[in-house]
């Protein structure tokens, strides 16, 4: 009886110790693995290395686009590196192009910013065998392999239609301010603006009484848009009845300024991209409309264009991405789609 008890006791003890030692061993194995070569064993290896260069890495829009492109790229066993300007970066787009070319990547997606020398870099890369696909903003005169984005003409027309929907018929004067980031004549934004401008000013019902002005926001400096918007609301001049943003960051800034200067209801806002804030504002009616760009489609087209370029040497020069304007009536639908 006693002997049995002793054996049981010794057994329990042995089990306890063995269990604890095993636990410790597995724990430490786990720890050592976790701190092992920078999680290298958890990473996946790919065949191709692409890079995506954008003007503002911090924008939600580009982050979402990157996520889509990355997911699509993973399907064709490619890795996409996300690079671009940010508040802390010291480089401009030309530098990033230089880096990417020197790093010998397999392909580049570039948000064309119209920077001096960027066009040459596109040409240099393409000459070096690296396909460059512009996204959202095109560099049509460069040797870029393809463009994935919106049809600026179409988008300008759509914008104008949406604006016309909003403009009341009974007002004597109506001021529309369009915030532009890239004032280069050939840029997408400039084209969009000219479409809007032409459409509004040339229409009989609006010509004369509706003023469309462009406000250029110099890129590269922090809080530039805040300053411009502040000036806009503080100025002695007539304050705009409608502000059209062609950029996600500007949308957020202007919307915040409308709230701060108590301009809700007085100044209409047409936003850009279906960020949570924008959709929320549209749902509440504090933002008139916001542009929806199908980023999934963008991701898909981007990969399709790149893959075609690399395999066939050529591809469509233009992939048009689907877009809509989200209003209060159909905002719930977009929420679901998101």
């Amino acid at each position, binding site marked *: 009886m006693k*002997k049995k008890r002793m054996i049981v006791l010794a057994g329990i003890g042995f089990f*306890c*110790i063995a269990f604890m030692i095993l636990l410790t061993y597995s*724990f430490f194995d786990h720890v050592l693995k976790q701190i092992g070569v920078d*999680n*290298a064993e958890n990473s996946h290896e790919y065949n191709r290395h692409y890079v995506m260069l954008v003007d503002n890495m911090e924008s939600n829009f580009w982050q979402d686009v990157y996520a889509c492109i990355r997911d699509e790229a993973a399907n064709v066993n*490619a*890795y996409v590196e996300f690079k671009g300007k940010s508040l802390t970066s010291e480089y401009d787009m030309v530098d990033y192009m230089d880096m990417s070319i020197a790093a*010998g990547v397999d392909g580049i997606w570039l948000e064309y910013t119209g920077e001096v020398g960027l066009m040459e870099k596109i040409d240099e890369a393409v000459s070096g065998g690296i396909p460059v696909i512009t996204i959202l903003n095109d560099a049509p005169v460069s040797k870029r392999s393809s463009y994935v984005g919106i049809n600026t003409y179409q988008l300008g027309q759509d914008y104008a239609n949406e604006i016309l929907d909003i403009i009341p018929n009974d007002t004597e004067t109506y001021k529309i301010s369009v915030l532009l980031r890239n004032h280069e004549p050939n840029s997408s934004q400039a084209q969009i603006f000219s479409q809007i401008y032409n459409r509004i000013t040339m229409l009989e019902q609006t010509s004369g009484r509706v003023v469309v002005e462009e406000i250029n926001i110099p890129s590269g400096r922090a809080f530039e848009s805040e300053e411009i918007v502040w000036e806009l609301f503080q100025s002695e001049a007539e304050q705009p009845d409608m502000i059209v943003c062609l950029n996600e960051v500007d949308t957020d800034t202007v919307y915040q300024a409308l709230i701060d200067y108590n301009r809700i209801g007085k100044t209409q806002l047409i936003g850009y991209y279906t960020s949570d804030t924008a959709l929320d504002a549209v749902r509440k009616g504090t933002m008139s409309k916001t542009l929806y760009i199908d980023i999934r489609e963008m991701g898909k087209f981007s990969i399709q264009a790149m893959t075609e370029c690399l395999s066939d040497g050529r591809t469509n020069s233009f992939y048009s991405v689907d877009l809509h304007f989200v209003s209060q009536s159909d905002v719930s639908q977009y929420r679901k789609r998101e």
Partner: protein
Amino acid sequence: MSMKIRWKDLPISQKILCEILITAIALFVSNLLIYNQINQMVKRMDSVYTSNVNLGELSDHLSDVQNYMYRYLEVKDSLSLTEYYRSEQEYRTLLGALNTKITDNPIQILEKNIRSMSEEYLRLTNETVQAKRGLNIAKYKSLYESSLGLYRFINNDISELNSQQFKNNSASYRTLQAALQYLEIVCLVILVVIMLISLSIIMMITKGIVTPLTNLADTAKLVGEGNFQVKVASIESNDELGIVTKTFNQMVDSLSEYVNKIKESAEKEQEMMERGYQMESHLKEAQLKYLQSQINPHFLFNSLNAGVQLATMEEAENTAVFIEKMADFFRYNVKKSMADASLAEEVETVNNYIYILNVRFAGEILFTSEIDQNVLVFRIPSMILQPLVENAVNHGIREIEWEARISLKIKDLGDMIEIGICDNGVGIEPKRLKVYNDEGIFVSRSDSTGIGLGNVISRLKLYYNSDQVLKIYSEGVNLGTTVCLQIPKKEVV
């Protein structure tokens, strides 16, 4: 044939040794394992920042390449060129350690970029140096610009990689630190568990040793109090305790048996003693009766009385007295043969006997007596003095040529009475005297009255239960004999 060693058969010392050994081994092994882990951790901790150190080296060599190239472009000396090629070679070697695979790990992709850019950079620097050698100023100037740009990018990427790795390494370091803390706790818990279990087992073993000892002590106490029925519960083990317990039980068994034997033999002895006493007394009685039955009255004193009357009628005075005395003598013999007599009666019988003898042998014996009258009333076995006197007559004075004398002395010694019968007869040789006194062997003569000295001595010994009642003294041959009798005073009932 291999003997199976059972745990319970091991000696206590070996059991304790085994236990301590097992505990020590358990502690040793667990500590060994834990220390192994700690060792790995410490090694790991040591190497945590190695990658940062390596990157620092990489950055240094990159600077060397750039600086020596610049110096060569500036002064175009062979030393700078040599140094440039050396640092370029070293930088290439270091680059070999960087990753070339395309992965989604930011550090690895950074390494790949650094490597690719560095290769491009080295290509540019080499071209620059070649252009300088070829004195193509415009070319080396533009190539230098390009390489400088790349140099900045690479440096930037290296510092980016460095900071990312540092972040990673710091996280690793923290994880390791936390793990070490956990290890400390585990170590402590394992040690405590081992300690508790060892303590419990030691306590159990000790209890297993102490309990039988306590039982043994208790049982020994009971046995000491005389209880032989108790036993220590038998232990299965064959160690010292098992042996002690078994031996103790055996001892108790044999003790009990032994005590029983002693008791039995004491009882037997007691019984035998009782029987001995009884037998002795019976024997005494029988001997007494037997001895007394030996005294056969040959004379019919009634006819003697008739003789007395006849002598008186015939006026033979002396004859009548003689027969009367003879009648008295035998009457006393018959009457007193069964019981005690007074000393006075004994003395009277002696007087009668002497008278008879003097008549027979015509007054040859001169008999004197010296008696303390106050002791005559005390009791004495009958037929004692007469046989003694007869003995003196028969063996002492019968054959002598000189005048025969016999004296009877009775003295009062207080508690005792001393009776002495002296003759001046043939005496006894000292050798024979010793035999008489020591062994008491006497031979009766056939013409005696029937009671010999042996009989008297036996009766006296039985009666007084003592060997020292009668003593015979003699100075030597022809120097006479004294028989001395010392008896305690016994009142007449």
